[in-house]
């Protein structure tokens, strides 16, 4: 199925989780915050949160700024 991740279309397996998505990008250990359809997902439930076809996922972090 297709989801949108940070503005790009990404193909993921049916019923995969946010935890698996982060693993696929190799960013589990980084200080990321994840939004699924504009809802912030708590880190503790990444592995239980199922992705749905058409989901919009934003993975954000802190960058330099004033």
């Amino acid at each position, binding site marked *: 199925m297709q989801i949108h991740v*940070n503005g790009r279309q990404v193909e993921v397996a049916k019923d995969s989780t946010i935890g698996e998505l982060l693993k696929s990008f190799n*960013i589990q250990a980084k200080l990321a915050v994840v939004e699924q359809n504009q809802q*912030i997902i708590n880190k503790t439930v990444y592995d239980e949160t199922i992705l749905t076809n058409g989901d919009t996922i934003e993975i*954000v*972090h*802190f960058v330099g700024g*004033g």
Partner: protein
Amino acid sequence: MLTIGGKSFHSRLMLGTGKYPTFQSQKKAVIASKTEILTFAVRRMNIFDENEPNLLEELDLQQYDLLPNTAGAKTANEAVRIARLAKATGLCDMIKVEVIGCEKTLLPDPFETMKASVQLLEEGFTVLTYTSDDVVLAKRLEEAGVHAIMPGASPIGSGQGIINTMNLQFIIEQSDIPVIVDAGIGSPSDAAYAMELGADGVLLNTAVSGAKGPIQMAEAMRLAVQSGRLGYKAGRIPKRMYGMKSSPETAMIE
């Protein structure tokens, strides 16, 4: 000591982390500034390039309080969304509310700024609001309960210094909460002047990151903020129209 939302700081200089030539110079500039508060922006992670360096990994975050901003927001809703994302990192409670209303001048949208500040206060954030030098708006923000007012000296990144001294003085005089002069500071004298006027602190970024020597400039800014604060506490002499001799007028040699 500078106290914001129940937290106290020795340093009155807050430093932005944007646009340094290298991570190394940034790290050294942060150390030279002796700041205790660093600002950040919230952006999409470049997940498609896992080698992209992460700024946070270069800094010892235990030593600093983080002040993320809502830069990029043009509406209150966008600012609130960014603030929630920032808080979800679990690294900070403070938020610098910044809602830009004009792309050319980068001046804040007062209506959306107020709306976002009120919403974030309701959600329990420690709110530091970036605002113009509008005196009444600063008062209204204080009445709404924000923890600090951050009037711009001049447009963000312009390096113009303080262009409306009188408004800034009015804001400082009327405020019972910290006033942090944010945006537009170009040189150490600008920072010192803001502190001499009685500002509680200064937030700057480009003045350091864009300097030829960011590390030296960070130190210069640290000294300027300290110097200005000390001068403010000491109380400057009144200005006079004409000269007044400082050497004795008696026992003249004839």
